Structures are given as C-alpha cells and as structure tokens.
C-alpha cells in the first residue's frame, strides 16, 4: 500500500548521511533517490516527481559561515536552469501537500532558509541554530520526548525516542520572544531533550547543546515539515543502539528494528494515505 511513495534525498557539498536516509525509506517501503543538489538546479530531477524532500545531515560546505549557511544561501539565491529560485519551487512543493524532512545539517538549513518554523508564512528566518554551549562537536545518544499536542504525521504513536546527536552547532535560538511564544502556543516544538524522568531539561548532557525551549525538533503549522538535530536514520536497527547488548538480553520479544525507523514508516504511511497521493 506504500507503492509509489517516492522520497528524494539531497546530497552533495559535504552532506554525508544520504545513504542511511535512503536506506530508511527503503526499509519503510518507499522508493528513495539520492540526488546531487546540482542535479536539481540543472533540471535533471524535479521536486514534483516526489512526495518527500529530504535534507540529510552532514557538513555542507564544511560548516563554513555557520552550519548550513552556504547551502541555505544557495537554495534562496541561486537560480535553477529554468530561472526560478529553488526556494520558490520548494514553496510550491509544500503547498501541493508534500512533506519535507531535515536532519541535523538539513534541519539547520530548513531553519536558516526560514522554512521552519515559518510562523509568518513568508520564509523569513525566525530562528537560528548555532554553537553548542559546550563549544564542541559531540557524538552522544540522547532521549527525546514528543510533544503530545504536536500534530505531525512524522511522530505518530511516538512518545520517547532515543537517538544519537552528532553536532557542534545544535543550539536552537528564536529571533525573539514572540516567535518562541508562537512556537509553544502552536505546539511546533515537537521534540524536546528530556531527562531520565522524561521531562524536558536544560541540563547537559541530556540536553547536549542548550537549545531554547530545550527543543530538539520543530514542525511547521501544517505538520508537513519536520526538522530535528538528532539522527533517526542512525537508529534503523537495534544494533545501532549503544546498549544493544543489554537490550537484546532483556528484551522479551526480540525486535531487531530501531526506533528511528518508525519516523520514516510514519511519513511513508501518511503519504500513502494522503488525499493528494495518486498511486501509480
């Protein structure tokens, strides 16, 4: 029933999590195509042929000028071969009812392009993602709590998620208090770093970067766009988990699937059931 769901996974310029993200979609029953961003600018691939546009993690342009800054500039300011700005094509893609996922560097790009949280609905930058309070890159697993009031197909049936963070610039800051308030009011802060009791926490290392609102991920109001710093595509198998030895021993029903895969299954399911989706 997920036949014909197609995910476009962007790569190039130092993006480096495209393969595991494509694998995630394939495991979730969708087709996935890895495409160099320049192949979209050159018109070889068109957004309209896909239902999910994905910006994976990595170090686009080596994080120069700030993480994802050069990448988001390119999407905002460089024209495609057809003479359009890519950001406008993305706007059309969203209004057509399609979905966008950004992870880590991809999330940074969505925020710096103004695609998230996009309260003003005009792709003005309303937040940024900058250096961790620790001042350094870190690879560690965190627990994320899902905001029960958030509405996004990506997070259906998920309450707590264990995922790795791997970033030096993961601290989300909102432009001003009004924006932060709107984010909370509209439940756009869909994912928070939580402590062992499952409560959102500002404390290191459970909160690895010191994000405002302890926020690990945002959705837009439509629920079609989801960005997060932790890496769901890095937890597709139980054996990705740092404590798999213990989990395997204490698991009553052996399940070799990783929790991160659920996000991809959710969104593929949502596309397949969407009113816009025409099965080929």
């Amino acid at each position, binding site marked *: 029933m997920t036949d014909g769901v197609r995910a476009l996974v962007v790569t190039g*310029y130092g993006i480096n999590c495209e393969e595991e993200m494509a694998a995630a979609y394939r495991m979730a029953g969708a087709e996935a195509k890895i495409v160099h961003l320049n192949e979209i600018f050159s018109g070889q691939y068109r957004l309209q042929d896909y239902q999910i546009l994905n910006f994976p993690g990595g170090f686009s342009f080596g994080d120069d000028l700030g993480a994802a800054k*050069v990448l988001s*500039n390119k999407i905002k300011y460089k024209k495609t071969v057809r003479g359009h700005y890519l950001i406008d094509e993305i706007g059309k893609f969203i209004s057509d009812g399609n979905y966008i996922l950004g992870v880590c560097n991809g999330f940074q790009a969505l925020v710096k392009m103004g695609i998230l949280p996009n309260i003003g609905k005009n792709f003005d930058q309303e937040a940024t993602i900058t*250096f961790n309070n620790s001042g350094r890159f870190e690879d560690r697993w965190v627990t994320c709590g899902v905001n029960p009031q958030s509405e996004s197909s990506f997070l259906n049936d998920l309450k707590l998620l264990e995922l*790795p963070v*791997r970033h030096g610039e993961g601290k989300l800051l909102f432009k001003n208090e009004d924006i932060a308030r709107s984010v909370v009011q509209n439940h756009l802060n869909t994912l928070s770093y939580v402590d062992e009791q499952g409560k959102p926490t500002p404390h290191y290392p459970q909160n690895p970067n010191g994000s405002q609102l302890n926020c690990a991920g945002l959705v837009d109001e439509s629920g079609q766009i989801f960005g997060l710093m932790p890496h769901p595509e890095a937890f597709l198998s139980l*054996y990705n988990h740092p404590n*798999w030895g*213990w989990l395997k021993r204490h698991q009553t029903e052996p399940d070799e699937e990783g929790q991160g895969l659920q996000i991809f299954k959710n969104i593929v399911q949502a596309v397949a059931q969407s009113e816009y989706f025409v099965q080929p």
Partner: protein
Amino acid sequence: MRKGIVQSPTINHIQLVKKENVADTLADQVQESALKYFRIDPGKTKSGKIFTIVQPVSEHYIRDFAYQSLQDTIIHDVYINRLYQSDQYQSYLLIAKLPGLTDDEGISAQKAFIDLLNPQDVPDTQWIFTQDIFYFEQALTESQLQQLAEELLGNPLVNHFEYGSFNGTVQYTPDVRLHTSDDVQSIDVNVPNEQLQQLSRDLLLALDLKEMQAIKNHFANQETIRARKDRGLSAMPTDCELEVLAQTWSEHCKHKEFNALITYTDRHSGEVKTIDSLFKTYIKRSTDMISKRLEKAGQHWLLKVFSDNAGVVRINQDKVFIWKVETHNSPSALDPYGGALTGIVGVNRDPLGTGIGGGKLLFNTDVLCFGPPDYQKTLLPGQLHPRRIMSGVIKGIEDGGNKSGIPTVNGSVVFDDRFAGKPLVFCGTGAVMPARYNGRNSWDKIIDPGDRIIMAGGRVGKDGIHGATFSSLEIGDHSPRSAVQIGSPITQKNMSDFMERAAAANWIKSSTDNGAGGLSSSIGELARIPGGAVVELDRVPLKYAGLKPWEIFVSESQERMTLVIDPHYADELFELAGEFEVELSDIGYFTDEGFLQVLYDQKTIAWLDLDFLHDGVPKKQLTAEWQKPQLSEPKLPEITDYNDILMRLLGRFNIRSREDIIRRYDHEVKGKTIIKPLMGRHGYAPQDAAVMRIDFDSHEGLLISNGIKPRIGDIDPYQMSANAFDEAVRSIISVGGRLPDLENGHDLFWTVNDNFCVPDSVYHPQNNPDGKIKLAKLVQMNEALYDMATFFNIPMTSGKDSMKNDFIRGGTKISVPPTILYSMVAQTNDYRQTVTAEFKASGDLIYVVGQTYNELGASEFYQLFEALGAHAPRVRPQEALRVYTKMMRAHTDNLLASSHDISDGGLAVALAEALFGGQFGADIKLHETRLPGYAQLFSESPSRFVVSVTPQKQQAFEAVFGEDCHKIGRLTQEPRLKLSLGDQPLIDIQVDQLLNAWRAGLEV
C-alpha cells in the same frame, strides 16, 4: 549574469561579531583557556570574523553580500569597511593564515558570493580570505598576546598575527604575490664528494653520498650523455630531474632502510647473520607463505598485497575490502592540527586510489602516541607542549573524519615522555569497492599507452614541497616551512563523491592519489605500468601564479587524485566533474617509451629513464648489534591498600577513559557502526574491536582492531611486537572473530597493516652512537611479525615504516621508543552474533579465560612504582591458539554474555571497565596460587579475557574451556566491586568511585 559588480579598486572588509545578547562561545572558551593554561586573565573576551575581499567590488554589492550571504540576522552584527571597536576592550589579537595556506572558509564565502551575485570575470583563484579577531577587556602585554597567539590560538608556521591596542584597521591580506620565474636550471653534479653532499643539503634532497654518486655516474654515462644530446637536453640534470629523483628515492617512497642489507650480530651468542631487506625477509615472505597456504586450502580472499596504495581482500562475489594505515608524525609535530588533518584526509585517498578506484570510504581508525598532558620538562625551541599537540591532533582528526562523513570507529592513545618530541599519529581508512567494474577486476591497475593523465581535485601551490624528503629527516632547525599544510576535507569529499560515480560509470580506467612527492611520484609510479609518460606541467591549474616548474611537479598540495582515462570517455568525465564541482585537468598521456618526460611550455625540462628512476637507488648497508638491557625486577613495598592501587591505576593517563576524545569523533555516521568505542547504559564502557556492518541488506560485518605496546620494547623488542600482534588478534577474538582456518575453511578474510615507527637506527659514532642496538630492535620486531603472522595465518596486506622519529634541537635529542602498530580487520558473516565488553546482568558468572603469569615487566602496575622490571609479558602462540579456538567455539555456541580482553592494568582494570556498562557490582574471589595477589590482579599477560556467562550456560561453558577458564565470581545487584584473595579481602569499593577515577578526563 550581472554586470558592473567589479568596480571600485579597494579592498573590502566585512566583519561579523556576535550581538550583545547572544553567547560568544568561542570567546568564552578562549578566555577560559587563557586563564587555565597560561594564567593570563584577558577579562571579558569578544570574537569576530573578518572577510577580506581583494577583488574590487562596488559598495552596494558588498552590502548585499554581507547582509544576505554572510550575516545570520539572529546572532550577528555586521561592520563593513569599519571594524568593530569599543572602549570596553583594551587589547586585541588578529589571526590570519599565512599566504598560500588553505582557507576553506574564504573559499566557501567566495562560492556564496558567486551564488548570490553571479558576477562575470572574477578570477578562479582565491580572492576572499578570512581572519579571526579577538578583543580583550584587559590591556594584555605584548608578550602575553604573543603567547596567546602562538601557543593557544595559532601557530607561527601557519598564521600571521597582529596584536596590541586596536586602531580599527587591518592591513594584512594573505593573497600570494610571487614573481613568476619558470627558469629551469641545470645543476652540475660532476663535482667532488663534499660538494655532492653540500648540494644534497642545500637543495633539501635528503640523499646521501652514495645516492648522489649514483646520480653523478648516471649522468656521466656515455649512453645517457649521447641520448640527452640527441634530444637537445643539458648534459647535467635539471633542477626538476634532481627533485624528481630525490622524491622518488626518498626513504618515504623507497623504504631504503627496510630494503637495506643488514649485518646483525648477537653480542651474547656471537652469532652473525645477514638480512637482505627486512621487508622481503619478514613482511613480504610471511604474506607470500600465507598466500600459498590459503590458495592450497582453496581460499581465495587475498587479492592484492603491497603493490598498490592499499591491500585488497575479498568480502564476497560482489565486493572487496581495501584499507591502509599510515603515519603523519613530522607534520603533526610542527602543526598538530594541519598535520593530523592532512594525515587523515591523505590516508583516505589510498583506498580511494587503489586499482581502478572510487571505493566507498567506510571508516577511519586512529592511534596516537603523545607525551603526557602534564609534561613538566622544559620545552626545546620549536617543541610544542604535549597537551597542545594532543588537542591540535584531535581537532585535526575530528575535522578530517567528521567533515568527510567517515566514522572514526576505533583507536588508541598511548602516553610516554619519549613521544614529547615527535608524536606518532597513525591514521587508517577502510573502504568497500565493487569487485568488478564493467566486467573488470576493480583492484587491477591497467594502463595503456595513449591513455590520458587527468589531475582531479584541488589546485597546486607551494604546499608540502619537500614533504617526502622532509619526513625522511629528523626535525631540525632547518625544517622547511612549506612542509606545513592544511587539508580541505570538503574539497576531498566532493572529489570522492565524484570518483565513486565516475568509477561506477566505467569512465575511470585506473587511479592513484597524489601524496608524498605529488605528481612526480604518482605519475612516476603509474608510468611503470605502460612504460612511460609525458606530462605537460603548464596545464596544471595553480592556486596562485609564481611556482617554478619543478615545484609544480613535486608539490604535495592536498586533495588531488591522478586519474587514468581512455580518451574516449573524456567528455562524459569532464561533464560529471562539472556537476560535482570538481576541477579536472588533462595534463598528459602515457607512453611505452621507457621514459618519464616532463614538458613546460613545450620544452622538455625532465627526461628520466624509468629503470634508473625506480631501480637506480643504491642499496644501503647497515649494521645491527644486539645486546640485552641490564634489568632487574623491582622490590615492591608491601601493598596494603588495593582500593587505592586500583583507583590510581584507573586514573593513569594510559588507562583512563578516552571519552573526551571519542565523543568529538563522529563514530556512527553512515549508520553502520555496531560496536562503538563506548557502549552500555550510559555509554561509558570501553570496547575491544569495533564492529561495522557492510550493507543495510545483509548481516556481513567487519571487526576492526589495533595493537600497540611500545613500553614492552624497553625489555624485549621481540615480545613488544608479539604482544602488539596478540592484542589486535585478541580484540577481534573477543567480539566474535574467527581465526583463518585452513582445514575447515570458512573463507573469512583477515588483513593487517603494519606500521613501524622507530628512532634513527643508522649508526653514527657521534650523532647516533646506539644506532646499532636500535637497528637490532627493529630486526627483532620484524622477526616477531613473521613468527606471529605465519603462526596464525594472518597476513600483512599493506603497511608503512617511519624511520626518523627524533626531535633534535641544540644538541638535545628526544627519540620515540621503537614502536610497531598492528591494525587488523577481520570479516564476520553476522554482526548480530558479536558480543560487547560490558557485563549484562546480575547473577551472571565471571571468568578469567587464559593463563596468567608473573610477568609484570613494563606493566602499568610497575609504573606506579616507577619501575620497569625484567620480565616482559610473553606471547605463547600455542597457548594463545588453544584459548582463541575455545573462544571461537564459545561464540558459535552463544555461551558468552560479555567478553573484554585483558590489557593495560590487568584483570582488575578489565573487571572495572566491564562494570561501567550497567548498574551492578561484582563479588570476586580469587584462589591463592603460586602467583602473588598483585600478579593475579595486575599482570598484563596476553591472550586473556574477562567474560561473563549466564548460570544456565555454566556447564556448557566450562566444558568448552576446561583448564583455560577460571571462575572468579559473579555479578551482584549492589554496585560495589568486592574482591578477595583466599580469605583475605583486598578490594571493596563503589563502582561509581572507580568510574569517577577512570573518567578523570583528558581535557582536549
């Protein structure tokens, strides 16, 4: 296209500073570090980034660029051509790159400029540069600022500094302005010996007298003279020819000492033997022997050894595994960050350029040897403090791995005072390549006359000129500045993405990397296959004008590959490269005429007989003399407080947690890392071998380990090498690896990279009086390599030797201890069957597997008492094989809940580490044996493990192991380690206390 962008002839500066209400994390770190490490209190600190645009651009475009492309409106204030200044800050420090050094951020800014403004007619060289500026509240003195500049924030070999009281302007721009001089000189080598030697020194050729004489004789040869005359060439060699010979004949490229004729005398037995090449006698011969045995047993996984950039073994019908580990020691001593960064991105290019090339880079592994972070001795001029070397190297590996999207899955850090001069920086990369491209074996390098030579990737500058010859010298007062360079992971990532696609499309026929010796070395090597090459140097794209032709040829500018292509595919290849923004240049072609010919502006500037170039270097003759060190066992004080001993051991630099380093490396990008360096409930428990899966649709996996034991060499160099080998093997056995099996062949590969790092081992009565003993140690290390490899049938497939690891200043020499690193990868059919090191549940039984001996020489325990000892741990191959075979059986029968190898600190440390994975304790009862208690606890005898077993499997487990397992206790719910010897309680301590001692941190 927009017109009119290029206008006013001024240099423009755009500065970004953090808004007042936004945290300035970088500045805060600088403030903290200045106080902590230098006792300099700069007060409130502010950072800024300056972009200098040296192209004339009209003001309003500068503003667009600043506000749209550079500024993050939420965190930055922008200053244009008027830099931030405030009375709040009394002093400042500006840090810029020296001309010609990689400034990736400037390049990225330039790309952003082009994306935004699409200007016409801007040059393709670099014209936007970045500089960092720090403002300090306190009026720091010149010397304080200089110290912060040179010892905390920059390096005089890499950076330009300005400091003092800020007047609001910056004058410096790092663009390179050189006067072009493409003159080619011929150099008279028909001179007496002293002048030949002087010539070698003056030109930094690093060739000795015999080698210079060989060159002199070659050019004096009547045939050479006639042939050169016929071609209208100078009789004497050109500068380019001499440089090419020096690069090709460097120790780095020709391994002259590993190929030398060695006379070895054992002073005790009086026995004298001759060894014709260490490489052929021990390394290659062991692999040849194993290869024959494997073939005879019908196992065909050993595909390519020693003859390419990296060894190749077969995973299955469709895939091969390629990998290489090498060192980057000398550059890391001078500029730790740049040295390690170029080390890691450099070794990435080895598997990338093996056979046809284009393999997918799967993982990095790094092993580092430093002086201790609390090193107290006075530093020699030019010597960097070990803590600084460590933090720079680790930052370099972090950027090199993380920015390339390659997980760093495994490694090791060793501390010893003798690494305080030159650190050892071992970098390794594994890759997976399709077994066939278009029906051809991917690992074969085929080149035909007429194939084009394509340079791909970065441009050429003066970077790393004489790198290959420099690494063959000890670090001295005249080490060339150009030996320092900084890699660009992003340039290389684009290139490796491109190569993967191009190889898959069958557009690449062969490839190799440009490393030491640059084009001269890569093309010189490739030319041997078809039998010649013609290179047109004026077609090589440069970073900046002004390089001499020979400099272009030997430059080691990073991120470049040499591709060999059939001219038929040129158009497709160039088009794809355009899409991936990778620069390609067609710089020549291959021939079968027997010569390496180099042209510049259609004029021949080098014409070298390939046979002479590659085989003309005279064989070295060296002398080794073995004499055992005079050693004794220490008289230990009576040990009353074992809690204290264990706590102190856990806190030792060689044992304590590497978490500060490990978390800075992305060890799980690609989503394929199964056993990471730290595992367990809180991610504290250290592991043995790393485990990776190969694909998302199979369960095949790789087990990756390292073994390094330099201190044992102070007692017994043979055992040092054997113990290192055993450590790497047992780490793999611990997680579930299977030894090669010639009888019941399972066809799972093993592949080893050996890396020798030794001090100068060539005897010299004044400069190196103990050279003969050092060389004897090297011989013994090789003997152990041969014995171990052939005993276990585990082959070397590639490796490297680094021969001059000495730091010499003003008559003082700091030499590394002779060191060998074995890096191993073994294959598994199912990564789900591997076992992690941490204990899993209370109630499980704990065993020591293997036999413990009273051999604490060079142990961490003896070092607590500042003793070396006389009895080094010995590898007993038969016993090791017996234990490992039982471990393999236990893994197959799924009998192990956990397994951790016993290494530094012995059983007690291994037990503590395995406890760090969960929330429980252990109740341990050791039996009284002939061994003293401390030996049972702290001996570092090899080939042993601490394992845990569920009670249900006790019987089956004990049936497998018999006398090779010793039940020592069980896991308890109470989180304490309680340990007694017979009736005598020795240790009783909370696991948390042990954990805190072990997690004391490395502050990198």
